Every structure is written in C-alpha cells, then in structure tokens.
C-alpha cells in the first residue's frame, strides 16, 4: 500500500484534494452532493477529458501539441461538410470520419516533427496558425447550425428522477469519454506500443539503441491525439448542437494545464490516465462548486488560475528545498 501511494503520489494528492473539496462543498451547498450534479459534471467534462487523454499520450512521448483544439474545430467543420455530402450518415460513419480526419491532422504534425526534425512546440504552433487561419478564411467565421438530426439529438443512456422532480441523466458524451479513457489506458499501460512510448519519452537515445522505431512513435502519439481531437470535436458539436469555428480556440491551454496538473511531465516519460482525468475533474469540480456557492462566474477563472499556480508551486516544492531558504531568511534577520 505504501508503495502504491509513493509511486502514484500525484494521483493520491489529487484524490485527497478532490475528496476534501467534495466534503466541503457537500456541507456548504445544498445541491453539490446529488446524483444530478455529479452526472452534470461528467456530461460537461467529457470533451475535455477526451482531449486530455489524447494530449497525455503526446506528453508521455516527450512532445507537446498546441494545435489539437483548433484541429478539432477543423474536424467538426470538415465532418459536417462530408456528412452533408454523403447524405447524413450516422454515429458510426460520423465517428469514423471525425477520427480519420483527426488522425490526418495529427499525422501532419508528426510528419513535420519527424521528417524535418522540427521540435514539437515550433511545429504545432505553426500548424495551430495554419489550421485556424485556413478554417476562419474558408468558413468566413460562419457557424453551421444545420446539422444532421442524429448528431443534435440528445441520447440519454441512463436517467433517474430526483426527489425534486428534476432528472439526473448520463448522456452519450460520457459513454464516448469512457471508451476513449479506457482505450488510452489500454494503449499506454497494457500494450507493448504504449511502453515503447513511455520509454521513448523517458530516454529517446536509450529507446533508439533498443531499436524502437522513433518515427512510428511520433506518428502513433500525434495520430492518437489527432483521433481524440477529432472524436472530441464531434462530441462537442453534438453537445453544443452547432459548429462554431472558433468555439474551441484557446481550449488547448486549459487542457494542457489540467493534464500537467494530473502529473504528466513536460519532457516526457511520465503521466497516467487516472491523474489526467482527476486533473480535469478537479478543475471542473472547482468551477461547479464556485457556481453553487454563488460566486460570480467572472471570478471562476481567476480562482482556478490561482489554484493551479498554488498546486504547481506546492507540488514542486519539497520541504528540504524550502527549509534552507527559510533558514537563510532567519539567519539574516
């Protein structure tokens, strides 16, 4: 048990913080501790979690991707157009098209990174501008509201009437999210490919000497994120019931913050699916709790920013590091 805690310190710390917050919010508000609210949290967090597990794979492989959120917007638009051409389609063809387009966009990043040795942050900042600029240019910023019915109809997987007459519902995005989370977990912890990704992120030269195919690693990592971005994009369109070209603009940094809060390391080799999901949930619960506590919505981001800043500062500060600093202070006074 002690070993488990030590090797998953970030996850346990996040769990403890989330638990403490839940206890506090349950006592401080009337509505937090309810099935309806819990389901709501899951429904609203689904898209971010899908993005997050995708980004996690790239971070584990030692890369970073700034372009995935706008890539998701491109996929939304592209998928909506293609579905129109083929006469409507359905969930299966929709997910295949979205996933496929996403993989293509991710593979383009991997191609630039692997073929021309452009480091991932430079390559993806370039593709961020290319994807977003071209999307806005060709769409003129016009949204699509005329989506196929199957895409905009809410699909309720589980529902229960609450005592106050409202309905607690789990909707399709949660199922898709669960499948994506499980698939990512399977990939990175249970398959040889996943372990190679970890090894490549941890020590690229060591991985190379073992004969791991470096190019394949880049294409798998960025392709996986591309696929998740595509699926997440489609689900977001389903959830919002519209396609707005700049709806996901800026989402990349929020997701990045959540994933790293969940213990993934910029630089590679470290990170878990559980931590990643907890990171997204921590932010979602904070926002939800602030809402229920009646805090002005304008203050949410400020508080969340302060929390992340504090979390990063604390998680990077061990006591030994702080002590000499404090001792020096003391000596000078």
């Amino acid at each position, binding site marked *: 048990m002690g*070993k488990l805690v030590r*090797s998953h310190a970030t996850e346990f710390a996040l769990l403890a913080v989330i638990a403490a917050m839940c206890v506090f919010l349950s006592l401080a508000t009337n509505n937090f501790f309810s099935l309806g609210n819990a389901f709501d949290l899951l429904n609203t967090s689904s898209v971010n979690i899908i993005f997050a597990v995708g980004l996690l794979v790239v971070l584990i492989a030692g890369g970073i991707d700034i372009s995935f959120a706008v890539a998701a917007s491109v996929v939304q638009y592209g998928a909506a157009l293609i579905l129109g051409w083929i006469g409507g389609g359905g969930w299966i063809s929709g997910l295949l098209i979205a996933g496929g387009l996403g993989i293509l966009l991710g593979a383009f990043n991997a191609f630039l990174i692997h073929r021309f040795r452009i480091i991932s942050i430079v390559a993806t900042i370039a593709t961020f501008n290319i994807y977003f600029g071209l999307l806005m240019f060709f769409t003129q910023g016009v949204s699509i509201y005329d989506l196929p019915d199957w895409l905009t109809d809410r699909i309720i997987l589980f529902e229960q009437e609450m005592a106050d007459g409202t309905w607690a519902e789990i909707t399709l995005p949660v199922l898709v999210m669960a499948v994506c989370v499980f698939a990512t977990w399977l990939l990175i*912890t*249970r*398959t*040889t*490919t*996943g*372990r*190679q990704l*970890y*090894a490549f992120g*941890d*020590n690229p*030269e*060591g*991985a*190379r*000497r*073992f*004969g*791991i195919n470096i190019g394949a690693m880049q294409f798998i990592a960025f392709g996986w994120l591309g696929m998740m971005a595509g699926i997440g994009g489609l689900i977001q369109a389903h959830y919002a019931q519209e396609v707005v070209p700049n709806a996901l603009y800026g989402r990349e940094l929020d997701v990045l913050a959540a994933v790293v809060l969940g213990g993934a390391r910029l630089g590679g*080799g*470290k990170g878990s699916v559980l931590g990643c999901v907890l990171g997204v949930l921590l932010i979602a619960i904070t926002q939800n709790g602030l809402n229920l506590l009646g805090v002005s919505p304008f203050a949410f981001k400020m508080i969340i920013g302060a929390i992340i800043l504090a979390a990063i500062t604390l998680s990077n500060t061990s006591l030994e590091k702080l002590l*000499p600093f404090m001792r*020096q202070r003391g000596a000078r006074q």
Partner: protein
Amino acid sequence: MAETMSTGGVKPLLSLHNINMTFGGIKALKDVSFEVLPGEIHCLAGENGSGKSTLIKIITGVYRPEAGAVIEYDGQTFSHMSPVTAQAGGIQVIWQDLALFPEMTVAENIAFHTVIGRWPRLVDYRHMRRTALKALQRLGVALDVDLPLKDYSIAQRQIVAIARALVGEAKLVFMDEPTASLTQSETDHLIDIARSLSVSGVAVVFVSHRLAEVLEISSRITVLRDGALVGVYPVEGMTQSRITELMTGKTFNQQVRAKPVGDEPIVLEVKGLSRPGQFEDISFAVRRGETLGITGLLGAGRTELALSIFGMLKPRSGRVWLNGRPVRFSSNRKAIEAGVAYLSEDRLSLGLIQPQSIADNLAIASLDRIKSGGLLSDERKRRLVDRWIADLGVKIGRQSDAVSTLSGGNQQRIAIAKWLATDPKLLILDAPTVGVDVGARAGIFEIVAKLAECGLAIILISDEVPEVYFNADRVLHMAQGKMAGWFDPRTCSLGQIEAAVYG
C-alpha cells in the same frame, strides 16, 4: 599494418573486418578489424574519440558501417547489424550512460526486451517481473523490482543495466566504461560478475581508457587510436604505462614535482569542518604557492568538501579562514569575490556551458572586468580572451566558436582560464583530467605547476592516485568522509599511497 595476435585456432565468436565509418566528413573508423573469442574477457582500449563507442554501436546495429564491411557473428555473416538482430543473437551492451529508463520500474527496465518488436502485443507484467527477479538472482542482488529506477543510486542502476544484459541468452556482453562512476567495492563486485560470466561461457568486452581494474582478469587487449587499429595484444606482461603509450603513441616520463613550501603565508585554513553524511572533522591549511593533493575513492566526500569551501554547500560545523580572516560564504559569488575558484569535476554539464562560445565561457565569471562605461565591452572581452588563450596555450579557431567544438584538454584550459580571469588566491581543481586525453593531461599539470610558482594556492582533488602523487606537494587521503592520512611524495612511494587508498 597493425600487430595482430593469433587466436590459437579457436574460432572467434565475433569478427569484424573492413569497418569504415564517417561522420560529417570526419573518418571515425578506418579499416578496423576486431575479434572476440567465445567466453573470453577482452579489453577494448583507446582514448576519448578513438572510435571505441562507434565500434560498439556498429556491432549492436545502432550505426551501419560503410559498404565493404564484413561482420561474422556466431557462424553467420552480415554486412551490418540491426538492434533487433544483435539482441536476438545474444549481443548485449551496458552503455556508459546506461541507457535505462528512470521513470519505469526496475522490472520493466530489466525485461524491456519483452516489449520490443514490430507489432503491438499485450504486455505480460508477471512474466516481466519473473524475468527480472531471475536475472537479479543470478547476480546475487536483491532489489525491489516494482519501484521506479529513479529511486536507486547510480551503482544500483548499473546493476540493473547488467541484469538487463543478462536476460535472454547473452553470448557477448560489452561494458562501456563500467567503472567510471563506481566506488572500489562496487568495482570489485562488477569484476566478480564479469569473471563468473566468463566461466559460464559468456564473452565479456570491457571498453575503457582506465584499465587498472580490469587488466588482471582479461586475456587479450585491442587498442584503437584515432579510429584505426593499433594492435591486439596478450595481457601477460602488459602494464598500464605500456597501454597508455599504445593509446597515445607517446611515451611519458613522470617525475615527482613536490617541493618544500617553507614559510609562505597560509592562504586557506580549515578547522573541524563537518557536513554529516558527507565529511567529518576536516582540518588542513594550504600555503601560498603550495599544491595540496586530496585523494580517496569515489564517495569519500571530496567534492562536497570542495563545494563547502566554495560556498555552494553549507557545512554544519567547523571554521574556515581565508588569508587569515574567518569567512562564511553565503553563496559561491561571495567566495569568488573573496578569491576562491572551483573547477568542477563535471566539465560537460557543470564546468562549461557547452553550446556557448569560447569567449563567453571564459568571461562569465569576470564580467565586471570587461565593463567600460557601465556596459560590457566586446573589445575588452576580446582582449581578455586573447590574453588567457595565449597564456595557457589553448588552440582555438575563433573566439565565437562553441566551446563544445574544442578537445577535452583545450576545454579544460578554457575552464581554468575562466577562473584565473577572476584573479583567485585559491584554486580548487576537482578531477581536472576527467575526459581529458592522456596525452593532454601533462599539459594541464604543466599549467598547474606554473600557477603554483606564481603564488597561487592550489587544492588538487583526484581519485587517480598517481596524479596527486606526481603533482602535489602534500597528499591528504580521505576515506568515508574522514581524514585518513597525510603523505609526502618526496619521502614515500606511489605504491604506499595506492595501498592506503585501495587496500
């Protein structure tokens, strides 16, 4: 034609011929041949940059040699290897940098070969764990295989690297500079392992430029110089100095430089300095113009002692006087201002800023001296650099070239010049010849002797006993953080100090 030695009719396990390799226009290997017999312990010797590592990378398939190469291994002929064929054939390497994965568990590191392969499969963690435990058992070591590797010390990681090499059916194991970061008892353990491997029929190749430890157990030695084969020799009758001559192509004649320092004023005095767990109750004094040698095994607390004098570590107790005045530095900046300089043992990552220019590396510690009118002056920087480069005889292209383009010896001269430019009273040299070719070491000590003549007080730290014996005026032996004895090179023999240190 290089000298070769008959293999006595035994068919070699591995033989390479016509190996050529070029990097960016520079010939790294020129027509090299190399043979290893089944079950033998072989030494591959050569200076830094002689092509040893390139040769191993060709044998293990990391690099592909130029056309015409013939590689015969275990009865099969190849034009080049690949990492997969090499591993499948039982060729294993323990790399100098270990090439391990710190974030992964020990089990996964040892049994990593199970996740290699073209097509994705499910990972069998239980099989991995069993494999790892078996490999560790074979070495007679108990480690918790479920902990991440980063929780273990360098020596323990080396054990993991060895265990990794032994899983599967290893027939040929390369150890690339295996003793560089080990203490004596750890080195002894490593040699025992090599011996037992050899007995069980596994061939072991030690790749090293420091052969004292492995000389006694090897049967043959192959020497490379400048990418070419010098020869293959039996170990019988081979001495360290003969190998050095073969590696460098030069002969060395060292003499004890120690001299009396008489009544020169004391520059540094240390009394009862302690830092629990690292060093305890250290007292000594260094006079103007004196070179004090400090030697001892790795982990004897030498570097920590030096860093404490340099203000980068805080001693728990004890006192330090510089030029007769008590000092307690809050940072190394204060120490530098007071006239203390410390040349780091780790030139590659701490001593110099490798990608930056020669000029900037030299000027970094004395920026206040190249100011004019409150701003840094390029002209004054150029003059400062010109002066020191001339004084220390450094060979450079342009001042703006990256310091990483220089050879180890010239880099070390730049590092020394950096500190001399701060006008120090006390210069602490921590392992100044690490990564410096044998041929260039004499030049470094030439400079050290000249500096002492000019009145600098010098502390020379090295785990190579001959270095302090020949170049210091007095030698302090440290063991397990404590002062273990004083030696005067004028009245004792090298063997006496070596016996005390290694015995």
